[in-house]
Each structure stands twice: as structure tokens, then as C-alpha cells.
């Protein structure tokens, strides 16, 4: 700084020397550029803040309104008519647990088996097609899956009517690509040395996969499956067309309309009576808590496993 200052002060008794930019002096252009850099850094920071605000708002509001409603009865009683206070969402809790149990039993083994195929055998066109369409399937509108299951099973070839089983098929279809994708990534991370070592000991493919590869990838597979469960538990649109909804507890395997937490929450939020809306907030807190728990737990298991990608 001192050098530039010195040059600017006129020499005694003479004209100032022609201005020559010093090394540390910045031209207007540079100053503009660095100014813009500062401004844009500010803009990006502001955008980051804006992007985080909705999450905070949702968490605060759901927690505030939800906590006011939830008590023991919320988990054990069926829902009364919307205009009446009290009662709970037992139908939704049981329905979601029932549907999810069946969907998990379908989607996770099948998803992991598909991933095993893709990683252990998958070469050629079939594997490429499966990989590509699994990716594409993550983007299929959930309402369309509902329409499909309705058309195929509820009224079409199956004639099964609405019910728990049909709903779980729809949810399983939503979960399948998520399980497959994450399981494939996890199986790919199992080093080939393990497989070769197992083959060298005389193990077959089945033994290698079931005793070596799957156990080695277990934490990662758990992570992916839990994220898929979290996603499946919150699905509403396919359930509208397959489970249909009920305010009372339903334990039928198939054939009578089943309830589910998101479904009951949707119905409660879409009607004008305050008690019903309050219960919907309670259900939102429970659903959010469940999804949050699954997601955080999944990430925690994933981060503890050495296999997990260093994302």
C-alpha cells in the first residue's frame, strides 16, 4: 500500500509522473469483477438461506400443531366424525403398518435380487434395459401406479376389490426401483477380492453371494431399504386408488377398503371441521417423525459402514 501512496503524491517541485499502475493497484475492471464476485457470493448465500427456510417452517409448524393433539388415545382410538373432538388414528396406524409389512416383504427381496442380478450376472442388453428402466421407474407418477394397480387388480384381471393387499402391491411398485438402485450401488462396492477369495475356496455363486457378498454389503443394503420404506410410508396418491380409506380399524387381508396414515391425514385436512384438521396435524407429526427417524437412522447406519460411498 505504501508504494502506491508514494507514487500518487506529487514529487516536490515538478509535475507528477505519468500514472503507471502499481502491482497492488487494481484497475477499474478488476475492481468491478471482484465486486461482482462479492455480490454473487452474497446472492448465493441468500439463496441457500431461502432454500433452508421451508424445512424449518414445516418442522416448526408440524411439531407445534401436532404436539397439541397427540396423546395416548391418538394411537389407540378410531377416528370419530370430523366435527367431533378426541379419538385417534388407530385405523391409519394399523393400516400403514399392515400395508408396509406386505410391501416390504415384496419389494425388498425382489429389489435386492434384481441388484444381485445386475451386479453378479448383468451383462448385455437385458441388464442395460433393466438398469435404465429402473432409473426411469423412479420418476413414474405415483398416481399412475395407482391407476395401473386399480386397473389390473382391483377391477380388471384380478377382480380383487379394494384392500390391504392391493395397496401393498402399489406401494411395493413405488419402492422397488429405489431398493434396486441403492442395493446395486452397495453391491458394486463389495471388492472383487472377496468374491475371488470365496470362489478360490470352492464356493459356488449362490454360496458366494449369500455368505460373502450380501453380508459384506448388509449395512448399505439396510440404508437403502430404510430410505425406500420411508418413501413408501409417505405415499398417498396410489393408496387413494387402491386402499380407498376407512375411518375404522380394518384387519382384512383383502376385499374391504383399508385405511392408511397419509390417506386419513389427507381426508382430514380436506374437510372444513376444526377437530378433524387438528387430528390431521397430529397424523402429520407422526408420519413426519416416522420418516425422519427412518431417514436419519438409515444415514447413520450408512455412515458407520466402511462400504458406504463417501458422499
Amino acid at each position, binding site marked *: 500500500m505504501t508504494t502506491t501512496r508514494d507514487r500518487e503524491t506529487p514529487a516536490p517541485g515538478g509535475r507528477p509522473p505519468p500514472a503507471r499502475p502499481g502491482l497492488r493497484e487494481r484497475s477499474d475492471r478488476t475492481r468491478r469483477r471482484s465486486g461482482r464476485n462479492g455480490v454473487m457470493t452474497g446472492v448465493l448465500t441468500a439463496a441457500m438461506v431461502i432454500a*433452508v427456510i421451508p424445512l424449518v417452517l414445516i418442522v416448526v409448524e408440524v411439531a407445534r400443531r401436532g404436539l397439541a393433539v397427540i396423546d395416548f388415545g391418538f394411537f389407540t382410538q378410531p377416528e370419530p366424525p370430523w366435527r367431533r373432538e378426541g379419538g385417534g388414528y388407530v385405523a391409519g396406524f394399523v393400516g400403514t403398518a399392515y400395508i408396509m409389512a406386505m410391501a416390504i416383504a415384496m419389494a425388498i427381496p425382489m429389489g435386492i435380487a434384481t441388484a444381485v442380478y445386475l451386479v453378479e450376472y448383468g451383462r448385455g442388453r*437385458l441388464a442395460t434395459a433393466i*438398469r435404465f428402466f429402473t432409473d426411469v421407474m423412479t*420418476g*413414474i*407418477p405415483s398416481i399412475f401406479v395407482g391407476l395401473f394397480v386399480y386397473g389390473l387388480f382391483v377391477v380388471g384381471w384380478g377382480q380383487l376389490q379394494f384392500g390391504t393387499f392391493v395397496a401393498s402391491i402399489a406401494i411395493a411398485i413405488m419402492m422397488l426401483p429405489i431398493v434396486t*438402485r441403492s442395493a446395486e*450401488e452397495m453391491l458394486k462396492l463389495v471388492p472383487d477380492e472377496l468374491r475371488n477369495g470365496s470362489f478360490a475356496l470352492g464356493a459356488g455363486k449362490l454360496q458366494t453371494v449369500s455368505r460373502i457378498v450380501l453380508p459384506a454389503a448388509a449395512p448399505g443394503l439396510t440404508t437403502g431399504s430404510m430410505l425406500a420404506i420411508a418413501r413408501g410410508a409417505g405415499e398417498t396418491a396410489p393408496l387413494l386408488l387402491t386402499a380407498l380409506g376407512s375411518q375404522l380399524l380394518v384387519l382384512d387381508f383383502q376385499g374391504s377398503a383399508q385405511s392408511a396414515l397419509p390417506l386419513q391425514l389427507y381426508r382430514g*385436512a380436506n374437510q372444513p371441521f376444526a377437530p378433524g384438521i387438528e387430528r390431521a396435524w397430529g397424523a402429520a407429526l407422526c408420519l413426519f417423525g416416522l420418516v425422519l427417524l427412518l431417514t436419519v437412522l438409515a444415514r447413520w447406519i450408512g455412515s458407520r459402514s466402511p462400504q458406504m460411498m463417501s458422499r
Partner: protein
Amino acid sequence: MSTATDPRPPDQRLTSSGRARFADPLFRWFVTLSGTVVLVILVLMVLRTTQDAWPIFQSEGFFGFLFGPEWSAGFSRNEITGTYGAWPFVYGTLVTAGIAIVIALPLALAVAFYISKIAQKRLRNGLSYSVEMLAAIPSVIFGLWGLLWFLPNVLRPVFVALESWFGWFFLFEGPVFGVSYLAAGIVLAIMILPIMTAIIREVIAAHPLDHQQAAYALGATRFEVMSRVILPASFSGVVGGTMLGLGRALGETIAVLMLIGGSQRAGTSLLFAGDSMAAHIAATFQDASPEAIRGLMAIGVALFIVTMIVNVLARLLVWRLGRVTGDAAV
């Protein structure tokens, strides 16, 4: 060297016995079969829904169906008596998804760049965590929060202000209903932000570090490195991520259903209530006649075709970068 004394290899031990001989081929068939299930499901989806929707397409024509301005479902059991023009819903879907992309794309770019290039290491994990957490929230909670808190407390005052300042402009014409294309689009933008951010972040991470360092060495500022070095090179990935977000926005049902208002007017103002394809299916399904169900199936097929095209294009664009894209927010 004891083996040298025994010239015969212990071949009995190497041949597998009974069950084990079939285990591997069977296993192979089993996993191949479950792999093909995905393809079977997709084919069945297309066949089944198209078959159900066929009479509608026959009576209206595919483009007549898409662009027909009037939807009045009939009540017949086995013939087509109503008029099925899905334009109000197609229009609503396009408008809400468009609003969502216009809001989410700059935000996702900014957030992705902030997290990968500006934020300190300590902050980085927490920030990306909180953005990904948005992807985990079920859409019905977005709908509930949007309808009962965000709309009355934040959006409605903004809409009223918009209407009073820009009411002369056709996009912001009144009256303000609250539930509207704009409300649905804004909440959609929040919902698709995570997947777009996740993909743009991966694209940024894939950009070679030496190019960036070269630019710094030439005296570029951080913003110039981001906007003139990384961004042009990641263009196809950004477009792919945007299209994946678009695919989500087109197919989103419940949150849109709760915020769009369910009107078939297809007005030009963003503050008017409207209806989207997915929302209309969900809203009218319960009381639909067998004939109307066919109409809804037809909407579903059209929606499927559009999202499929968008998704396939997006995947093709991002596939070149390696396949991991977007896993943080599937």
C-alpha cells in the same frame, strides 16, 4: 511337495453333490427373473391402462383428447357418452410445473454451488443434509402445510399484493382465490428442489479440479470460475437434472391437488384456481362412473407418456456422467 507323490487330483472333492449342482443355475434363474419383473411391470402398466383408456382415445382422437377444452364425464357403464377434452388439466400441469422449474432452477443452481464451492467444510454436511431432508418429507405433509399454513400466512398476502400492483397484467389478474396455479407451483418448487440440487451437485463434483485451478491461476474470481468454467461444462447435467425435476413436478399429485383449487376454467392468470392431470385423477376418482374411470385412465396414460419422455431424455443426459446421479434424493 507331498502332492507330487499323488498324481491323481482329488477330483471327487471338486464335483459338487446333488443339490449344490442345481443351486447355482437355479439361483441365476431366480435373480434374472426378479430383474425382468421391472420390465414386465412397465409393459403391463402400459398395456393395461392403454387398454382401459382406448375407447376414449377412439372417440376423441389422441390430440382431440389432449387439446379438447371441455371435460364433462358421462355416466354410462359401457359406452362413451361424455365429452373428454383434457386441455384444462394438461394446461394446469404444464403451468404448475413451469412455475416450479422457473423458481427451483436458479435456487437449485445457487444452493448446489454454495454447498460445493462456497460453504465451509463444517457447514457442508449439515446444509446438504437439510436440503435432502426436504426430499424425505411426504407430499401430503407439503399439501397440509401448504394449504393450512403457508397459503394463508405467506402466499395469500403476497398474492394480494401482486394483484394490486400488477393486476393489469394478464398473469396476475384478480380476484385472488388463494388456492391457485401459483400456490401449487411454489410448493412444487420446494418439493423438486432437493433432486435438482443433488444432481447439479454431482455434476459440479464431476468437473475436473485442474480446469478450475487453471482458471484461478489466470486470475479468475470464484464467481467467474463457477459461472464461466464449471457451469458451461456441466450444462448437459444441469439440463438433465432440471428435466428430472420437471418429471417430478408433472407427476406430483397430492400437494398439487390440495393447493390448485380444482377448477376447470384454465384461465390465463396464475392467481386463478385450476386443475392438473394428476390432481384431477385423484380428486374425481372416488365418485367416478365406469365411463369416467376410462377418462381418468386416459389422463393417466397421457401423463405417463409425457413424464416418460421427460424422464428418458433426462436419464440419457445424465447417464454419461456415470449412473449414481440423484441418489441422495431419489
